[in-house]
């Protein structure tokens, strides 16, 4: 089978396979660290994939990831929030990737995103339950947001470059552009 046959919106079979595998890698990464509250590799992987593959494919990965979360945890407001917050990170990364010169910049993006994670969700919860609830939700989660931001920064500063190197070489070897 020719993997370059166009299928949908200019996407090739190899794109569809790649998107599926990478969304699975994010779900696996999330589950692997789920025992530590607010320490995760999801943000790092989304940033990495956006840098390597661009916004469109990574956005599709995030949609599959969020949908998989519904299958695992059921439908709730926080899962719906996933359809919004991860694309925000992807868009921000896509916008900044040509301006950022080193892993420090990406670690900053990841850190700031982790720090504001609770705030994004508070906005989202406010839509359903009112601003007072949203404020309480955010305030209650500030310690966790601090932990989230710091851990995101540390994980990205350590892992971004080695992962990008491995991922890029794999893409060169197996991915036909």
């Amino acid at each position, binding site marked *: 089978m020719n993997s370059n046959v166009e299928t949908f919106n200019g996407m090739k079979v190899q794109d569809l396979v790649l998107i599926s595998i990478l969304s699975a890698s994010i779900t696996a990464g999330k589950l692997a660290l789920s025992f530590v509250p607010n320490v995760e590799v999801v943000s790092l992987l989304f940033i990495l994939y956006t840098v390597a593959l661009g916004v469109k494919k990574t956005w599709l990965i995030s949609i599959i990831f969020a949908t998989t979360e519904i299958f695992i945890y059921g439908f709730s407001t926080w899962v719906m929030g996933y359809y919004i917050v991860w694309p925000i990170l992807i868009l921000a990364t896509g916008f900044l990737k040509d301006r950022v010169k080193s892993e420090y910049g990406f670690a900053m993006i990841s850190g700031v995103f982790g720090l504001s994670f609770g705030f994004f969700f508070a906005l989202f919860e406010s839509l359903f339950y009112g601003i007072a609830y949203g404020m309480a939700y955010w305030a209650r989660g500030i*310690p966790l947001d601090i932990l989230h931001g710091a851990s995101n920064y540390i994980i990205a500063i350590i892992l971004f470059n080695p992962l990008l190197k491995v991922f890029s070489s794999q893409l060169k070897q197996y991915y036909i552009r």
Partner: protein
Amino acid sequence: MNKKILSIIGVIAAVIILGALYNTYLAPSGVEGEKEVTLQVIVEKEDIDEEFTFQTDHEFLGELMEEEEEALELTYDEHSALGMMVTGMLGYEVDGTSEYFHIIVNDEDAEYGASSIPLMDGDEYVLELRDFSDYGGNEEESEESEAKEVNLTITIDKEDIDEIFTFQTEQEYLSEVLEEESENLELEYENTDFGMSISEILGYEVDGSTEYLHILINGEDAETGVSGIELMDGDEYQLELRNFAPMEDEEEEGAVIDGKEVTLIVTIDTEDISEEFTFQTEQEYVSGLIEEEAEVLEVEYENTDFGMSISEILGYQMDGDGEYLHILVNEEDAETGLSGIAIKDGDIYELQRRDF
């Protein structure tokens, strides 16, 4: 590499500073020393409403609840990130998928979980079991829980039961009123996956294989079962025993399968014959009845393309050229021949000899 380590140390230092600032300015803080507080536990659906008064030195509600675990019959999950998650109190086990213990502090909804609610002397804490769906819907809920007056008619034709009940209720659904009034209604039921299924009402046992209780709301057929019918003030609900026989047949053709009792009067004026018969029949049409009772009626007939044609009845030979049998249904002229008249329970048919 050194630069990275430095930046990581910097971030850890920032976390410590931010954490300290949070604890100083934003985190809920407890008060040391002895306090007297009251704690009320409400599980409305189990009629649980108990109030406790505690003397405590603890600073947070969660700590007090842990200490009084036995008195409160408390079970909980100690989740490292989210604090105490109450899973049961006073013997009631929370269904975590649909309900939770809502915390109210001095009549106001708590903004934190029990582990983060600081205890203050004289405070009143209420833990009330609520459904997730109640959140943010308090206004709606109070509207719904207003008392409503509804009428319920129960009709079981074959037992001559036709009773009207008027209920004042705060329930939301018809099934809930039925449950509430199950004693008055002599109700036996099961709660199935499809909602309430009534097996007995007013002493009448419903034969589930052939009949059911049809629901009407203000005279119109209901679209859901009793568990899906929302009560509205002033509404009239009717539960009517019906057979599974298709309704269209009943209305359009009268083709009821059950036994019916009908009266047939045969009048031959020229011979002074006027006889009245009462028949129990399961036939659908008058022609079928006449065929069935041909011997009793001393009938001779033919089935033509236009339906049944009687040539002799009660020993009287019809003169096909000058006379005919005029048909009346409940004292009104029939619009069709014998083969087109659907039999309905209680109907009176008359066959009158008439000249053309």
